[in-house]
C-alpha cells in the first residue's frame, strides 16, 4: 500500500505538470482540445489525491506501522476520531492534505467557472497546477508521507501528541488549510487575468464567493486555534503572538483588506493595481506562513524542527512567485489604470482606503515583529526578541482605529458626503456611542482603551441599526409589507452589504471580548491542601481532594474543587492532568471552565503532589470572553448570509412566514458557539488521604509501584491507581504500629521477592547488587580498550571495496538503527 501511495503522489505530480503544460499550450494555440485535456488532467489530480488520501487514512485506521508517518502520528489505543485526524497531525501528512484540499477546491472553482470564464480557465488551471506541483515535489523528494522503515518496522505507533488530542485541534488544521487553499483561487484567477490581459472586473466577480468562503474558513480556523489554546494550554489566555499564530493571522489581515477594497473597484473602477497586489500578497503570505512555521527560521514555542533544506525549497518558490506575479503586474500596468479618481476624503472609498491601509499595516507590523529576532540576528549579529507586550501596545490602537472605521465607513456616501447628509447619518450612531461611553464611565471603568472600545462599539452598533432600520422602512414603503418581511427582503436584495453588517456585529462582540478578557482579567495562583481556600474576583475556591484514575489510554489526576460564591456553593470543578501512554513526560492540562454570559471561571492545575495531596492551581476570571467566541459565530453567520444563493431568500420571502425566518436565524446564531463540553468524566474513587506520618513518607520512598506499567516509580511519586492503593495500604500498616523493616518485609512476602523495594536491602548477598553496576562498567571499559587496540592495528588487507552508498539512505539507516535500541 505504501508503495502504491508513493506512486500515486508521483503520478499526481506528472499529471499536474501535464495539466499546466496542456492548458497553456491550448490557450496559446487556441486549441479547445488541448485545453479540455488540461482541465481533465486537473480534475484527475483531485482524483489521484483522493485515492492517496484514502490509502493514508486506511493505513491509520488499520494501524500499518510500517509507514513511518503512520507510526509517528498514531497508535492502536487512540480513538478512531483521532486516528482519522492524525492524517494532518504531522508535517508530511499536512502537506499532502494541503494538496488534497487544493485539488478539490481548485476543481470545484474551475468547474463552476468553466463556461463563464473561458479565456481565464486555462491559466487558472496552470497556476493552481504549478502550486500543486511545488507541494507534490516537496513530498516526493523530501517529505513523503508514505516512506516506510528501511529496517525492521515497529509493531506499535508512537501516538499523536497528547496536546493535539483535542476536538478543536483536530478540526482546526483542516479549517485553516481550507482558508489558505481557498485563497489560492483568487490568486489563480488574478494571475490568469494578468497573463491574458482580460483585466476587466470579471475575474473579481468570479472569485468573490471563493474569497468569501476562504475568509470564512480562515476566520473559523483562527477561532478554533484560539479556543484550543484557551482550553488546552491552561494559561488562561488565547493569543500569545507566537510566530505560528502570527503566521496564520497574516493572510487574514490582507484577505480582509481585499474583501473591502474589492467593492471600491466594482463600484468605482479604482484601486485595480492595489487589489491585484493584495491578492498576490495574500497568497504569498499563506505560503510564507507555512514556511515560517515549518522551517525553523523563527523560534517558536511550537517547537518545529530546523529544516534548512525545506527552508531553501520554500524560499525558491516564494521568490519565484513574487517575481513572476509582480513582474506581470508591472507589465500590465497600462491596462490596470484606474477609471476614476478619489473625489473627496469624506467618501466611502476613502474610508475603505483607510481600512485597507490599517489592515495592511497590521499585516506588515506583525510580520516585522515576528521576523524581528531573525532580522536583528542577521543585521546586528545579536538576537533581540520582542514579546507579547510589544505586539499588544501596537495592535491596541490599530484595532481601535479599525473599530472606529467600521462605524464610520458605512455612514459615508460614495464619491462625496455633503455636510447635511453627514449630520443626518452620524447623529444617531454618535449619540449611541457617546451614551455607551458615558455609561461604562459611570459604571466605574477607568481604562481609556476599554472605554474607547465600548464607545466605538456603541457607534458601530448604532450605524448598523440605522442602516437596517432605514433600509427596511424604505422597502416597507415600496412593497407595502410588514417590517420583518421588508427586513428579510432587504437582506436578500443586497446580501453582501447586509451580511457584511452582520459580520460587523460579530466584530463588535469580538472586540468587547478582547476588551473584557484583557482589561479586566483577574488571576491568582496558589498551592492548596485539602480544605484550603483562595479567593479570586468574588469566587472562593476550595480544594477538596486529589484523585487518580486510569482509563487504559491515559492516567488522570483530578483535583476536586468546590467553588463558593456569596457563601453559597456555586459549582464543583475538576481541573485535571492527563498522562497519555508513551507520552508520560508530556502531561496535558485539562482545564475546568465554568462558563457564563458575563465571565468565565477558569481553573487549571499545572502541578500536584499525589502523596501529599497538594495541588498548585491557577484560577482565572475572564470577563466577557464568551462574547469573543459568540462574535466569531455571528461573523460566520454573516458570511454565510452573503454566500446564500438568491433563491434561498426568494423562497423565504414568498413561502415562509417572515417571523419564522427571523426566529430560525436567531436560533441558528445562538447555536453557533458550541455549548461547553464536559471536560472530564469522573470514574469515582474514594479520595485518598495525605501522608500522615514521617514514617509513611519514608516507606513511600522505599517502595516502588507494583502495577507493572509505571516503570518502577516510587509509590510516593507515582500517580497510577495501583500506587494509590499501595499508599493507603502503607498508611494502614503504619497505623497498626509496624516499623519500616516490618512493612518492607510485608511487601517482600506479598510479592515473593525484593521486587517492590526501590533499592535492594543493604545486607549480605544484596551488597553484590550494589557492586554489580560498577563491575559491568569496568568490564565494559576493558572491552572497549581491547577492541580499540585491535581495530587500530594497521589493516593487512581490507576486504571488499567502496560501495556506492546513497548518503541520504545511509543516514536514515543510521537513524533507524539508533532508534531501535
Amino acid at each position: 500500500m505504501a508503495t502504491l501511495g508513493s506512486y500515486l503522489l508521483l503520478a499526481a505530480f506528472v499529471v499536474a505538470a501535464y495539466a499546466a503544460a496542456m492548458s497553456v499550450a491550448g490557450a496559446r494555440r487556441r486549441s479547445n482540445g488541448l485545453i479540455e485535456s488540461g482541465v481533465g488532467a486537473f480534475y484527475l489530480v483531485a482524483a489521484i489525491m483522493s485515492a492517496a488520501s484514502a490509502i493514508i487514512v486506511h493505513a491509520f485506521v488499520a494501524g500499518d506501522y510500517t509507514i513511518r508517518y503512520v507510526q509517528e502520528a498514531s497508535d492502536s489505543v487512540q480513538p478512531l476520531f483521532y486516528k482519522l485526524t492524525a492524517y494532518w497531525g504531522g508535517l508530511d501528512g499536512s502537506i499532502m492534505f494541503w494538496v488534497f484540499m487544493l485539488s478539490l477546491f481548485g476543481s470545484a472553482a474551475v468547474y463552476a467557472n468553466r463556461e463563464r470564464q473561458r479565456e481565464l480557465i486555462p491559466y487558472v488551471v496552470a497556476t493552481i497546477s504549478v502550486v500543486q506541483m511545488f507541494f507534490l515535489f516537496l513530498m516526493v523528494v523530501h517529505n513523503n508521507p508514505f516512506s516506510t522503515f528501511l529496517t525492521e518496522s515497529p509493531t506499535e505507533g508512537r501516538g499523536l501528541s497528547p496536546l493535539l488530542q483535542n476536538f478543536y485541534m483536530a478540526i482546526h488544521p483542516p479549517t485553516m488549510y481550507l482558508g489558505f487553499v481557498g485563497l489560492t483561487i483568487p490568486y489563480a484567477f488574478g494571475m490568469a487575468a494578468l497573463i491574458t490581459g482580460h483585466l476587466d472586473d470579471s475575474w473579481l466577480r468570479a472569485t468573490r464567493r471563493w474569497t468569501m468562503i476562504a475568509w470564512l474558513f480562515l476566520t473559523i480556523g483562527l477561532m478554533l486555534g484560539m479556543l484550543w489554546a484557551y482550553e488546552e494550554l491552561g494559561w488562561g489566555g488565547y493569543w500569545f503572538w507566537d510566530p505560528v499564530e502570527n503566521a496564520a493571522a497574516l493572510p487574514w489581515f490582507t484577505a480582509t483588506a481585499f474583501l473591502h477594497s474589492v467593492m471600491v473597484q466594482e463600484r468605482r473602477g479604482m484601486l485595480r493595481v492595489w487589489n491585484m497586489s493584495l491578492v498576490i500578497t495574500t497568497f504569498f503570505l499563506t505560503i510564507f506562513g507555512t514556511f515560517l512555521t515549518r522551517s525553523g527560521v523563527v523560534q517558536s514555542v511550537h517547537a518545529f524542527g530546523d529544516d534548512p533544506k525545506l527552508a531553501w525549497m520554500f524560499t525558491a518558490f516564494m521568490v519565484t512567485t513574487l517575481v513572476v506575479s509582480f513582474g506581470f503586474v508591472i507589465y500590465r500596468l497600462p491596462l490596470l489604470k484606474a477609471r476614476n479618481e478619489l473625489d473627496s476624503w469624506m467618501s466611502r472609498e476613502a474610508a475603505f482606503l483607510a481600512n485597507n491601509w490599517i489592515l495592511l499595516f497590521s499585516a506588515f507590523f506583525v510580520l516585522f515583529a515576528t521576523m524581528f529576532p531573525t532580522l536583528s540576528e542577521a543585521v546586528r549579529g545579536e538576537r533581540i526578541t520582542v514579546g507579547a507586550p510589544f505586539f499588544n501596545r501596537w495592535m491596541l490602537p490599530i484595532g481601535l482605529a479599525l473599530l472606529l472605521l467600521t462605524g464610520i465607513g458605512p455612514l459615508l456616501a460614495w464619491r462625496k458626503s455633503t455636510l447635511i447628509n453627514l449630520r443626518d447619518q452620524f447623529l444617531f450612531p454618535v449619540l449611541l456611542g457617546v451614551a455607551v461611553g458615558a455609561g461604562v464611565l459611570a459604571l466605574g471603568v477607568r481604562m481609556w482603551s476599554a472605554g474607547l472600545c465600548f464607545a466605538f462599539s456603541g457607534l458601530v452598533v448604532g450605524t448598523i441599526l440605522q442602516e437596517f432600520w432605514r433600509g427596511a422602512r424604505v422597502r416597507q414603503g415600496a412593497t407595502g409589507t410588514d417590517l420583518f418581511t421588508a427586513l428579510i427582503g432587504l437582506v436578500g436584495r443586497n446580501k453582501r452589504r447586509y451580511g457584511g453588517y452582520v459580520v460587523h456585529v460579530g466584530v463588535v462582540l469580538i472586540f468587547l471580548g478582547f476588551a473584557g478578557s484583557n482589561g479586566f482579567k483577574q488571576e491568582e495562583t496558589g498551592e492548596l491542601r485539602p480544605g484550603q481556600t483562595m479567593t479570586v474576583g468574588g469566587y472562593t475556591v476550595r480544594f477538596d481532594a486529589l484523585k487518580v484514575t486510569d482509563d487504559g489510554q491515559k492516567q488522570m489526576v483530578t483535583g476536586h474543587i468546590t467553588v463558593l460564591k456569596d457563601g453559597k456553593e456555586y459549582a464543583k470543578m475538576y481541573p485535571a492532568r492527563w498522562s497519555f501512554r508513551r507520552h508520560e513526560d508530556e502531561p496535558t492540562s485539562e482545564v475546568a471552565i465554568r462558563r457564563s454570559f458575563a465571565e468565565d471561571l477558569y481553573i487549571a492545575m499545572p502541578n500536584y503532589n499525589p502523596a501529599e495531596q497538594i495541588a498548585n492551581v491557577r484560577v482565572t476570571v475572564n470577563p466577557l470572553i464568551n462574547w469573543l467566541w459568540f462574535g466569531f459565530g455571528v461573523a460566520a453567520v454573516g458570511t454565510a448570509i452573503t454566500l446564500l444563493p438568491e433563491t434561498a431568500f426568494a423562497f423565504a420571502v414568498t413561502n415562509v412566514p417572515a417571523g419564522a425566518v427571523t426566529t430560525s436565524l436567531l436560533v441558528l446564531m445562538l447555536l453557533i458557539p458550541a455549548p461547553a463540553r464536559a471536560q472530564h468524566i469522573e470514574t469515582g474513587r474514594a479520595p485518598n488521604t495525605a501522608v500522615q506520618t514521617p514514617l509513611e513518607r519514608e516507606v513511600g520512598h522505599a517502595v516502588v509501584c507494583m502495577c507493572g506499567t509505571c516503570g518502577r516509580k516510587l509509590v510516593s511519586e507515582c500517580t497510577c491507581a495501583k500506587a494509590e492503593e499501595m499508599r493507603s495500604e502503607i498508611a494502614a500498616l503504619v497505623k497498626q504500629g509496624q516499623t519500616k523493616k516490618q512493612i518492607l518485609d510485608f511487601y517482600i512476602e506479598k510479592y515473593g521477592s525484593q521486587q517492590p523495594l526501590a533499592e535492594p536491602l543493604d545486607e549480605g548477598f544484596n551488597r553484590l547488587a550494589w557492586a554489580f553496576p560498577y563491575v559491568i562498567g569496568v568490564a565494559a571499559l576493558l572491552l572497549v580498550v581491547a577492541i580499540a587496540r585491535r581495530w587500530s592495528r594497521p589493516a593487512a588487507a581490507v576486504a571488499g571495496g567502496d560501495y556506492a552508498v546513497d548518503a541520504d539512505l545511509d543516514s536514515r539507516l543510521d537513524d533507524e538503527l539508533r532508534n531501535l535500541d
Partner: protein
Amino acid sequence: MSHKAAKLGITGLVLAIAFGALLYTSLGESAEYYKHVDEVFATSDSAQTWYGKRLQLHGFVAPKSWEQRPGSLEYRFKVQSNGKIVQAYYTGILPDTFKEDSEVVLKGTLEPDGFHVTPDGVIAKCPSKYEAKSASGTGQGI
C-alpha cells in the same frame, strides 16, 4: 499631476517617519536580548555588562538543582549551557514541560545574585524526540 504626486509623496514620507520613530522608541522599551547562558558568562566579567538588562536567557535546567520553598510557589533552580551555569529565581507556576535537563527560555533580568525570572517568564520546550507540534508555555499574551 505633479502637484498631486508631491502631496502624496510628502504625506507618505511624514507617515513613514512618524511610524518609524514610534516603532523605534517602543522597540527600545520592549526589546529583549536573546542570549545563551554561555554567551552571557563567556568571561568572568562579561556578565556584569548584562546586569539589570532585560534578557531572554536560553539554557538547560541543571540536574538536581531544582528546589521549591515548602508551602509556596517560590522556586530556585540552576540553568546551564556549555559548562556555564547560573542561579535562577522564579515565583509562580512552572509549565508542564519544565523538568531536569529540559530546554528553557527564561525572561527576566540578570542581577549579581542570579537571574530573576519575571512572572510567567518560563518557556520550556518539549524534550520529546517526537516532532512536537507544541510545547506549552506560560506567557503574558492576551
